């Protein structure tokens, strides 16, 4: 039976403030599933026109799917959020691109006509689930030289990228990182970040009973360092390689956070009276050598552009995940975009805001959707990110405010 794909739109996105992973972080004593539940409930509150029973799927990404991120988190979060039990859900994983994949996967299902509306998002509590915890890499990876031994250390892959592109120096990376911090500070000052944050009740009880502080409220991102300087960045250690280039300052930190968005068929959004903010035109995931996983966004973006007869010049806004400054700069150099091009991460990125692995993809979309609204003259935008084990993902969006 011949049929037509349906247009898919991004309706609304929300995230928790991001926290620093670790025993002193905002969310040290907050469950990961409670964080994604806060996001889902806020999406429903903000979109009263969306009847909960019309949600056809809840796709939640997490890189580590055990403990408070286990139990098929998309389904368990749906139940915990109070969605009707008729709403199904699943867990999904593509490491850093988990939430992005939750969006593209549900979008595919919507385009096919199998789903009308979906909630897609991600959560990563890197304090509870440190990167790589519980994994058991197959010895064949090394024995058969399937990947370079450095491929499983993300910092090492970033150093590898510096090797491949000598023009990307530590100084450029630090300068880029400083700019990211400055842009985030400016966006906060302008109130551009806050509207999509859901406050989360946090509790500090276990940090020694007498030292506990009881309940509090997370209302802003914890990782940004607005006061950092180029000198301070230059003085940081390079933990992945002696005399290397990658530092804690020019890469994203280890973070806790959750994101979610409502994705719908365009006609269903119209029927329900949901305010569609951008249209998903196409997406691509590409594989690259795992030891230079940071280059992943390049082939993914090239594929999307080619398939849609676009060039990078047609793209008015780019939200690129800043796992490492070097990986963003490699992307920019490939497309001959200046380091400080105002189209790129205009409100800053993960170096300042944090990168709770599987949740970041939807943060890029949340910011792009807001930026689209401020720049109705822009027609196309990209969200793109590199992915561990050598992948990149890119989603092409059309501004519906135009």
């Amino acid at each position: 039976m011949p049929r037509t794909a349906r247009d898919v739109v991004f309706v609304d996105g929300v995230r928790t403030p991001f926290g620093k992973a670790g025993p002193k972080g905002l969310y040290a004593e907050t469950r990961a599933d409670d964080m994604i539940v806060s996001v889902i409930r806020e999406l429903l509150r903000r979109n009263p026109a969306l009847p909960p029973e019309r949600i056809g799927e809840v796709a939640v990404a997490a890189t580590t799917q055990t403990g408070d991120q286990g139990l098929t988190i998309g389904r368990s979060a749906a139940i915990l959020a109070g969605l009707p039990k008729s709403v199904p859900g699943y867990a999904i994983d593509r490491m850093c691109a988990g939430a992005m994949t939750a969006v593209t996967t549900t979008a595919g299902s919507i385009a096919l006509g199998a789903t009308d509306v979906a909630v897609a998002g991600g959560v990563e509590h890197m304090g509870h689930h440190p990167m790589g915890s519980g994994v058991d890499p197959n010895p064949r990876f090394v024995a058969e030289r399937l990947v370079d031994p450095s491929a499983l250390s993300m910092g090492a892959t970033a150093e590898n990228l510096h090797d491949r592109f000598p023009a990307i120096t530590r100084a450029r990376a630090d300068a880029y990182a400083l700019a990211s911090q400055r842009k985030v500070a400016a966006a906060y000052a302008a109130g551009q970040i806050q509207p999509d944050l859901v406050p989360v009740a946090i509790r500090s009880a276990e940090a020694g009973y007498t030292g506990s502080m009881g309940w509090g409220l997370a209302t802003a991102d914890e990782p940004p360092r607005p006061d950092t300087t180029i000198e301070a960045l230059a003085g940081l250690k390079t933990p992945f390689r002696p005399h290397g280039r990658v530092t804690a300052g020019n890469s994203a930190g280890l973070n806790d956070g959750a994101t979610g968005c409502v994705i719908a068929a365009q006609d269903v959004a119209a029927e329900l009276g949901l305010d569609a903010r951008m249209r998903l035109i196409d997406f691509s995931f590409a594989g690259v050598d795992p030891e230079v996983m940071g280059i992943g966004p390049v082939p993914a973006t090239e594929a999307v552009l080619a398939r849609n007869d676009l060039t990078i010049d047609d793209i008015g806004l780019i939200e690129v995940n800043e796992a490492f400054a070097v990986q963003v700069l490699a992307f920019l150099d490939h497309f001959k975009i200046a380091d400080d091009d105002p189209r790129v991460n205009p409100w800053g990125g993960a170096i300042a805001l944090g990168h709770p692995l599987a949740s970041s993809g939807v943060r890029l979309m949340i910011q792009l959707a807001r930026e689209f609204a401020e720049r109705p003259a822009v027609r196309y935008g990209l969200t793109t990110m590199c992915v561990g084990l050598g992948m990149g993902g890119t989603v092409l969006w059309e501004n519906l405010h135009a």
Partner: protein
Amino acid sequence: MLENLPDRSDHGLDESVITSLFPEEVVTRALVRDVELPDGAGTMALITLDNGFDHTRPSTFGPAGLISLRDALDTVAGRTTPEAGEQRVVAVGVTGKPFIFAVGADLTGAALIRSRDEALTIARLGHSVFRRFGELSIPSFAFVNGAALGGGLELALHCSYRTISSGVPAVAFPECFLGLLPGWGGTYLLPHLIGPAKALKLIVENPLSQNRMLRGPDAFSLGIADAMFEPADFLAESLRWAARVLTGSETVTRVSPDEEWDSAVGGARFFADGKLHGAAPAVYRAIDLVAAARGRTRDEGFAAEDEGLADLLLSDELHAGLYAFDLTQKRARKAAGAPDKSLARPVTKVGVVGAGLMAAQIALLFARRLEVPVVLTDLDQARLDAGVGHVKAEIAKLASRGRISADAAARLTGLVSGSLTKDAFADADFVIEAVFEETSVKQQVFAEVEEVVRPDCVLATNTSSLSVTEMAAGLAHPERVVGFHFFNPVAMMPLVEVVRAARTDHPTLATALAVGKGLKKDCVLVKDSPAFVVNRLLTRFLGEVIASVDEGTGFEVAEHAPDPLGLPVTPFLLLQLVGPAVALHVAETLHAAYPDRFAVSPKLRALVEAGKTAVYGPDSEVDESVAAILAGGDRPSSAEQVRERALEALAEEIRLMLDEGVVSAPEDIDLCMILGAGWPFHLGGITPYLDHTGIAEKVTGTRFRL
């Protein structure tokens, strides 16, 4: 900046004296954390009440906890004005650790108070700390995230605003249930907030109705909270709501409280009289305080509460209430003298001999609670069908009322079956008989059952007065016979007397106790002796009252002689509930065992012989023909004499029972009377009352509890 700092001279507080009263206090700390409110509403000082344990040990207020809260408020009070600069707070909030807001005063501490001065000091300390939540220059918010009982609820009431979680399982003032009153602001603030009628429902009616508690939505609809949020993100949503209230984008509207003070107070008095007949001073004191709250200022209202608390904290009724509460919370959970519970054998199928009303009630309970197959047997097909049909109809009723799901109903219905022969018991682990109360009948039943069951199948009897040892006498395995005595109605009454017969072995006892626990009943272990505990004491008590009628005391005098005790039912109403025939049967059994103490009343016998099943008619008036049977006699007593005689008889009987080893301690007697007869907390069951009135000493030469 120093505004709001408390004047501590007002109650002459000496902290060291107060905290030394209670060295073992589990201190609930007031943890303060600054919270940046959304919408630019400013900074709130959020206080978390946390005793450092999980929800199984709820936060309570003792002296050190109150002082911690006061210290927290001191720091907040210094930050309320613009001079505080960046440290300025625009509001104070208070919430609890997960699942618990706060459950009131620490009862362990309450029992340690020895002088009126100490009591008054504690009362005033609570007021002096709590009332500041309502008297700061900035608004205060209570975020009731979990159970809020007594002082916890009062703390919330002192705040300017309240939110409540729809998941809160318990909001209540249980004070009157125990013999206290909500005297840290409750009797003053609640009627002014929601009106006297609703307030008295919480303060008086609910505690006197099996200590009923409200859920979050009930409390919200009564107007106790200004907003309700779901538990998933309760605190975050409450804080956002508070921010909107502070910025003015949310307006709090409250329903105006009902103003029918006279009728509300009158209604509460009528209700209390119906339950207590003036017994238990706390309830009446609480009603008086609510009545007077109408015209009082806060200072006057709180001062009157202080006096009320000081009087009640030292009362015999409170001490009895705390004792009774402790029994039901602790001793009831683990029967004294129980064998090692690891000896218990699994029970995967249950047999019930008999298909009468009692048997059907028992079968339903086993099926519901143990969720194992239950087979009823009867020799008569029609009776069997009726019995099984009754169980299935009850299951259907539970489903139609929404108490259980359709799936659960189908499961239960499938578990219950009937059989004309006892082979159906072959693979049962526990068989209980509920047939006619006649030793020879029961012996025969057990003999038949023993032919088909495994040697380790427990044989239990629901007899209310017969000798379990005699029933087991002819069996090959008498060691597996145990008494398992329910009270009527089986589903409602929490007590099971587990009767140890002469040869009952430990695995059998352990299995019976484990089954009792599985049925969610409280078990008391008793020695095989005529009528065990509850029926023996009720029969003795009732026997004295009826004897006075036999002698010529007027029915009304005798019937209301025990009123000042505040027992749940009057003697002849109890007789009617038990059934005159059953009561006579138990009396005869006890008379046979103890002829000098248990008489068989000629008038009771006449009543039974006349076929009377009730004393009162449907119009609640005494049946005239019954009145005629009860009339006559030439040695009338006064009500006081009847009461004294009945109480003295109880004291004598209890002493004898303890000497005989029927139970291991007076605590078990009290537990049985509370759980099996519904005797009130303010009597402590009964032995605390017999002790503090001097009756125990007068009759037996010593107190039951030293």
